[in-house]
């Protein structure tokens, strides 16, 4: 192996910053990583620490999130969801089930909606990741965000960022005109509060350009 880089971790386990935009919070467990560039193969090898018997190292990963480059040092096991929330500091994306069953963690990768909980952050180097924070901001809401407000398309709000990310992606997907078509394409986003009728109404309002 060439280009070996060894890092010893000694950072606090999880300095959780809720202020959006606080970049580069490192989550590290004592360990060692080896990065190697060989024959076009990139290997990020997390070597277990003998003491921990299954501990982990950290890997340096560069992501593009909402148009900005983010250099993070993460556990290789980190999902894109955990990386966004805990390392990049963008907590708008929510964790519901962590197993692909609820849609709360929906983000866009290269313009398409995916579940950030079932994807390794490491696998997204070079991809364009968009989160709810990149869709619109207070005072400059995306049409779908504004429609959610207008239609009261939430109660507790926990599923809402995932719903909106799905709704925004849906606008560019093949989808029939009926409410039933929207329901079908929104079925991957579960709402425990049952705001479904208003969610469908909000998305339909945007689709009809009303």
């Amino acid at each position, binding site marked *: 192996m060439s280009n070996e880089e060894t890092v010893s971790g000694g950072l606090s386990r999880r300095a959780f910053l809720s202020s959006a935009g606080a970049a580069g919070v490192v989550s590290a467990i004592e360990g060692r990583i080896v990065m190697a560039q060989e*024959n*076009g*193969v*990139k*290997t*990020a*090898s*997390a070597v*277990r620490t003998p003491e921990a018997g*299954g*501990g*982990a*190292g950290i*890997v340096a990963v560069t992501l593009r999130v909402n148009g900005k480059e983010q250099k993070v040092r993460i*556990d*290789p*096991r980190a*999902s894109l969801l955990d990386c966004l929330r805990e390392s990049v500091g963008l907590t708008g994306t929510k964790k519901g089930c*962590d*197993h*692909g069953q609820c*849609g709360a963690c*929906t983000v866009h990768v290269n313009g*398409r*909606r*995916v*579940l950030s909980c*079932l*994807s*390794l952050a*490491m*696998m997204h180097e070079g991809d364009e990741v968009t989160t709810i924070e990149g869709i619109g901001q207070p005072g400059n809401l995306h049409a779908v965000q504004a429609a959610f407000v207008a239609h009261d398309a939430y109660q507790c709000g926990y599923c809402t960022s995932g719903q909106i990310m*799905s709704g925004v*992606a*849906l606008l560019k*997907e*093949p989808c029939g005109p009926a409410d039933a078509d929207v*329901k*079908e*394409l*929104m*079925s*991957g*986003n579960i709402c425990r509060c049952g705001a479904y009728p208003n969610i469908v109404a909000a998305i339909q309002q945007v689709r009809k350009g009303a």
Partner: protein
Amino acid sequence: MHTFEFVRANDPALAVAITSQAKTAQQGADMRFVAGGTTLLDLMKLNVEQPAKLVDVNGLPLDKIERTADGGLKIGATMRNADLAHHADVQRDYPVLSQAILQGASAQIRNMATTAGNLLQRTRCMFFRDTAMPCNKREPGSGCPAIGGGNRMLAILGTSEQCIASNPSDMNVAMAALEAVVHIRGAKGERDVAIGEFHVLPGNTPSRENVLEPGDLITHVTLPAAAKGSKSIYLKLRDRTSYEFALASAAVIVNVADGRFERVRIAMGGVGTKPWRMPEAEAALVGQAVGDEAVMRRAAEAGLKDARPQSENGFKVELAKRCLVYALKQATQNA
């Protein structure tokens, strides 16, 4: 989740060379390819899968779809399910495949899931997914608690004393009816396996689910040229209208000539330990008049004759029969 070494492969030969060193390509594999990750990462979080090495196949040049010389279709292993389902050629020539994929999972998951990953998705049996429970598939010899309870979603065809786990895929059912061929590149070269032989019955070794050996990389799947003038449908019956696995589903492809079934291909999902092709049901239809309910019912009886229901899924026997009859009716309606 256990930690792992991660390799991004940009050349199939390298992906094969690395994983050839694995001990097994079946349950308990120490090395895994990762594509969409929607099956694998879910199971790694549950510690059902504990690979020490992951080889990312997303950088391999296997995401294309092409026509084959004989008028068929060659579908790349890493092509996303959503792209496959919405592809114009698939919608025109193989609508049953498009319908099956679009009735599976959610829009987000279909954007991630790949052809090969879907072929290899694992059972949703709750005992398999829970490492606190015994499971012959996960831990050979530990027992099968599903035989006796918690088996409502599980299989009634192809089961064994060891395992009754169902294959949950919708895409696989359409692939089975379309007589797809799985193309594999392995340590010893390339080989083609008919979809019917790709998945294997649980028998006494439920931890073995398919013919893959260490190093075997699925490169693509081919479909033979679509039968001219055929009508098809994928019908999926489930507890919710969307984002739910099948209790019973049917992929039906029929050619009708002079008011009679001329060529029939049938596969069912939600009922088998593997995607379940039904040659007996097909044979019972060929030469018979379309539109005769009794004929279709006899075909369904033939297809389900070996069904062995468990304590909680007896309803599936009748549900599957009605599912097949209804699908046949739909497919022949305007034939």
